[in-house]
């Protein structure tokens, strides 16, 4: 009943030296003396040069905190960051403020969710692009301006010469996100982290921005981490996908493999609970019960167990490990989907629907 796809576009991740290697990243919030809240709980993943990976999860899954920790953007007080983020032989988490400044913006760059609030309202768009050029490259004022205007044009901003001197409030949401992408890509970074870059935008604008991102990273050879709650965004864009739940990665797989054979019960549940544009309307939705708040700590059991239809007492294992179930497909689950032991999967596997491309007229 399920279909397999030949892994043509799924280059094995281990074949090259990774650009960034995150190892056992933990982020704990809380004041001294109190038991803190662990937002990220031992996250590990690799990104190869030029690769696009997805980090998918709901609010509170720790996906944004992971990216902020890698970029050193978390506040220093009340937050403890442990683990490693190896980039170019150095652990980013150990860098001094000065060293961090040299890497950020030039080697690693970031695009944020809300283009309305992520640009400084009292500084011109142009300055916000040129300042990153000035910070990392020796450029004359005129050269930086020319470069910035060129960047804005390449990011699809019409009339970039005029926009250069304008303020963020004079630009639409989509334009602001393009300007932010321009600043992020100004120094041709090796890695671009996008934290929900299109969530605040309308769908038609989202399509434009995603298209732009895909085009830019492939032409620049930049690797990209796409952080999102939208499985649809990931499906069209990422080479590999990491699904996060309650601060841990619960499933890691190449994109086609993941969507064709979701193994973790959470991933499976997510796919079954979202209405699909191309799905059968009479097919009922199968929601995941409960809310992301209903969780047990990973140190006691599978954090998803309280919401899982397949949970048994066996799920009460402390610090469940990621297991490899198929090549490049790791799952942190006692009763993964598709395994022989669990017959009753609630009826709706991914193949239950008939994916049908929209009618094309040509």
């Amino acid at each position, binding site marked *: 009943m399920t*279909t397999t*796809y*030949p892994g*043509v576009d799924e280059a094995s991740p281990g074949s090259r030296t990774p650009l960034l290697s995150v190892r056992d990243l933990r982020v704990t919030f809380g004041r001294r003396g109190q038991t803190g809240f662990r937002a990220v709980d031992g996250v590990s993943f690799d990104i190869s040069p030029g690769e696009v990976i997805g980090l998918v999860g*709901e*609010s509170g899954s720790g996906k944004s905190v992971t990216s902020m920790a890698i970029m050193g953007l978390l506040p220093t007080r009340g937050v403890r960051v442990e683990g490693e983020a190896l980039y170019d032989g150095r652990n980013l988490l150990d860098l001094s403020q000065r060293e961090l400044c040299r890497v950020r913006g030039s080697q690693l760059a970031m695009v944020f969710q809300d283009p309305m609030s992520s640009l400084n309202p009292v500084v011109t768009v142009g300055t916000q692009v040129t300042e990153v050029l000035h910070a990392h490259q020796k450029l004359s004022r005129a050269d930086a301006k020319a470069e910035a205007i060129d960047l804005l044009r390449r990011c699809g901003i*019409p009339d970039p010469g005029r926009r250069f001197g304008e303020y963020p409030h004079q630009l*639409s*949401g989509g334009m602001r996100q393009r300007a932010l992408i321009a600043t992020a890509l100004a120094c041709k970074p090796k890695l671009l982290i996008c934290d929900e870059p299109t969530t605040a935008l*309308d*769908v*038609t*604008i*989202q*399509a*434009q921005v*995603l*298209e732009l991102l895909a085009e830019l990273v492939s032409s620049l050879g930049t690797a990209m981490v796409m952080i999102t*709650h*939208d*499985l*649809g*965004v*990931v*499906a*069209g864009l990422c080479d590999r996908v990491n699904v996060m739940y309650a601060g841990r990665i619960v499933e890691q797989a190449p*994109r*086609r493999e993941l*969507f*064709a054979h979701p193994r973790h019960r959470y991933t499976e549940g*997510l*796919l079954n*609970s*979202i*209405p*699909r*544009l*191309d*799905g059968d*309307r009479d097919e*009922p*939705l*199968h*929601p*995941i*019960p409960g*809310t*992301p*708040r209903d969780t047990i700590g990973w140190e006691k059991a599978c954090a998803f167990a309280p919401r899982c239809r397949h949970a048994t007492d066996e799920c009460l294992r402390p610090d469940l490990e990621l297991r490899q179930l198929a090549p490049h497909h790791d799952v942190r689950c006692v009763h993964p989907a598709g395994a022989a032991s669990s017959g009753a999967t609630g009826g709706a596997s*991914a*193949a239950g629907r*008939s*994916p*049908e*491309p*929209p*009618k*094309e*007229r*040509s």
Partner: protein
Amino acid sequence: MTDNLLEAAGLMVHYPIRSGMVVNRTIGHVKAVDGVDLAVPRGSTYGLVGESGCGKSTLGRALLRLEDITAGTVTFQGRDITKLRGEELRKLRRHAQMVFQDPMASLDPRQSVQSMLTEPLRVHGLAESDRAEFGKNSAKAHAAKAASMLELVGLPRSALGKYPHEFSGGQRQRIGIARAMILNPELVIADEPVSALDVSVQAQVLNLLSDLQDRFGLTYVVVAHDLAVVRHISDTIGVMYLGRMVEEAPADDLYREPLHPYTTSLLSAIPVPDPVVEDARERVLLDGDLPSPANPPSGCRFHTRCPWRRDELCATEDPPLREIAPGRRVACHWAETIAAGRIEPHAAAVVPAKDAEGAGGSATAAD
């Protein structure tokens, strides 16, 4: 057309733009809703979709007379309610209710759930149909009804004593739904009922809405930006753009064969959580941004961004919403011609599929 619970004709909601420091003058209007006709049959669900600024939420509120109507009529239960005022308008609320987008903002933060749920009962009294079960109007009967309503939406009785900030988003939305349903209304207008919720929780609320509809024979108008959500829950879908209805179709037909260029672009912009579909489909990208609703383009409002734009008519003539097949209405001069494939979109707007030959083709074809 026999039994429409709700109808609107030529509905307009214009907000004045005021300016001036000493004396405020009206210098223009934001035409949030600018001439919309629709009919919602009893017991059905009508979905309104569009991007931000298209006027769908304003339309939803105007249908309940929560906005000042500039022109046009709204007919509910066969009665023109456009001009209702005071007491009569208040009495109407028993039959027509609303579910809001942001469950945190739409619940009074200082009100307990109990007080929140019984408040409409204190105002309007128990619905006739509930008298048998809960008895005469009394604080006790109201509390009993509130508790049973809460159970119906899947919250424990203990929630009655709690306050909105003590719940998760999904639970709050359940409370909002319970409050809207407690008077046994006939019509419920839901404005973005799931967009503020986590993905895994959205389906719970959508299912709850469907179950309640089946149980009480409710009529819904669901306003949302997420076409997949609207398509799942609606029988008929109206697509809005800049204050106008540009297309109206049965939910299944709309995806299978969109007639308006805007609908086509919108559909192609929505990502589908399936790499096979994603890689195989061709995209139509729209130019630029939404024009200002204060100063909409001449002719067809969509012509400034339309990939199928023609030199004739589009910029000059305002296309009416016309029925070109049973149940299918569209406001495009060239709808038939485009459907017949005789007009092609501008090449620049089309992003070819990643898998031109359709790598997943064999797999999908198997189903």
